[in-house]
């Protein structure tokens, strides 16, 4: 018996359809007139845990249900249209044109040995294509950040907003929109603004984050939205070269590495300066 060569498609989540920066979240494997699908967080055919997806997409937890709807949709698509692979592939490719948050790209061809169960191949393929997205340094960073926020009860703070957009309408000038991952805007008292700067990334991407954070904090300070003592950069361990840039940021905000043992107490002091 000879090995089969099978097409596979990569399913990506694209939050910003203009920037088209997709995150791999699943794979669709084409067998002989049949298709199989496997996705991030999938427990079994009927059950999907949205948490791994929320961690990589940075969507609020209230959006988890929509991921579960989409995963079911891909399964039903594979089950109902898998007998006509070309038709199914065309439907997958059309997702991009439809402005869908999930799109598909041809991933290539994989060889399946005759004795090998397709489910094993599918899961191995998933590990190669998606596994890194969920378990790499970003996953660790987000996991650590989530734990830190939970221990500080940040999400329970009055006025906590995730993925906030702040629009400024200066008189006689164009509107300026700034985006921050977290904002605490309490009914009374000062606002607290957070930016995230990842160091485990390329030099270009790191510099872009630094510039963006510096610009945002300077603008917010200049327009009275938040003061320097309530601006926080959440970052991680950095090389000496990148430390210089982080030091530059410290003139606009508190810079807190979430890897540091004293990250919790540092943040607590910033958020509640009167506490011991």
């Amino acid at each position: 018996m000879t090995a089969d060569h099978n097409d596979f498609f990569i399913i990506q989540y694209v939050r910003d359809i203009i920037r088209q920066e997709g995150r791999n979240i699943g794979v669709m494997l084409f067998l002989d007139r049949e298709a199989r699908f496997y996705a991030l967080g999938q427990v079994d055919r009927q059950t999907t845990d949205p948490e791994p997806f929320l961690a990589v997409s940075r969507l609020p937890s209230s959006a988890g249900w929509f991921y579960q709807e989409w995963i079911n949709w891909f399964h039903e698509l594979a089950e109902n249209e898998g007998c006509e692979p070309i038709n199914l592939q065309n439907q997958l490719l059309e997702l991009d044109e439809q402005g869908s948050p999930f799109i598909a790209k041809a991933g290539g061809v994989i060889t399946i040995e005759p004795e090998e169960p397709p489910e094993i191949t599918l899961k191995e393929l998933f590990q190669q294509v998606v596994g890194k997205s969920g378990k790499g340094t970003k996953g660790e960073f987000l996991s650590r950040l989530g734990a830190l926020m939970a221990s500080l009860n940040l999400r329970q703070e009055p006025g906590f907003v995730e993925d906030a957009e702040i629009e400024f309408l200066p008189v006689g000038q164009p509107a300026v929109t700034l985006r921050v991952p977290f904002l605490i805007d309490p009914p009374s008292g000062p606002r607290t603004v957070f930016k995230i700067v990842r160091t485990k990334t390329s030099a270009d991407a790191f510099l872009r984050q630094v510039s963006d954070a510096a610009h945002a904090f300077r603008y917010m300070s200049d327009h009275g939205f938040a003061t320097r003592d309530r601006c926080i950069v959440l970052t991680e361990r950095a090389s000496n070269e990148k430390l210089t840039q982080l030091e530059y940021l410290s003139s606009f905000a508190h810079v807190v590495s979430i890897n540091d043992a004293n990250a919790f107490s540092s943040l607590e002091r910033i958020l509640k300066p009167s506490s011991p």
Partner: protein
Amino acid sequence: MRQLSKGSTRPFACSINAVLKCDCDEAPQGTYNELVAVRLAQTLHVPIANGLMTDRGGEDAFASLHIGHSDVKLPPIKQYQHRAVAYRYPEEVAALTAFDIFIGNVDRHQNFIASLVTAYLIFGGIDHGMSLLNVETEPTRSLARLRSRELIVNHHPFYQLVEGARLTAWAARISAADPRDIQECCRCTTPVGSVPVNLQQELAEALLSRQRQLPEIISINLRRPIAAT
């Protein structure tokens, strides 16, 4: 978002996602149709996407708001999922089917949103440009068809799936609506897109005629297999 004041309700100015509809070759009166469809649906409590009038480059446009969540888009419903939708949302499906027959919406096809597997119950119609004055290319011919006792909607995703008793009940409910409400849904004080005020009045009259005839139109066609037994 931008906080507007420090008042007790703490209002914010914000931007939200919407689909912008304008008059176009396929639906020359599309903007007006969208506006009237939403007004009618809200008056009759039929589940369709909310929306509001705005403009695009000085031209009238209709912004149809996303159903369910402003940031996330649900997957398109496939034909093999129609049965599951009808099973999960029997009342909403009956309402939408009766409504489509009322406004002559010949373009329902995949133009609805539904959640199918999570605890969130979300169902609603979208895209009503090809109804009302655009049943036909010419508004006058559209009006003539709306005044007739024609079914108009010969194909619909929920035919043979919608429950006959519920469909009949919704036809009666639409027919019992106050005629003044129907008129007010159609009439604006100014032209909307390419639709002048007098054409708005003509649509109101055609819809009042169809409203009276709707139970009979549906009753006659129940013998054809538009409803499940």
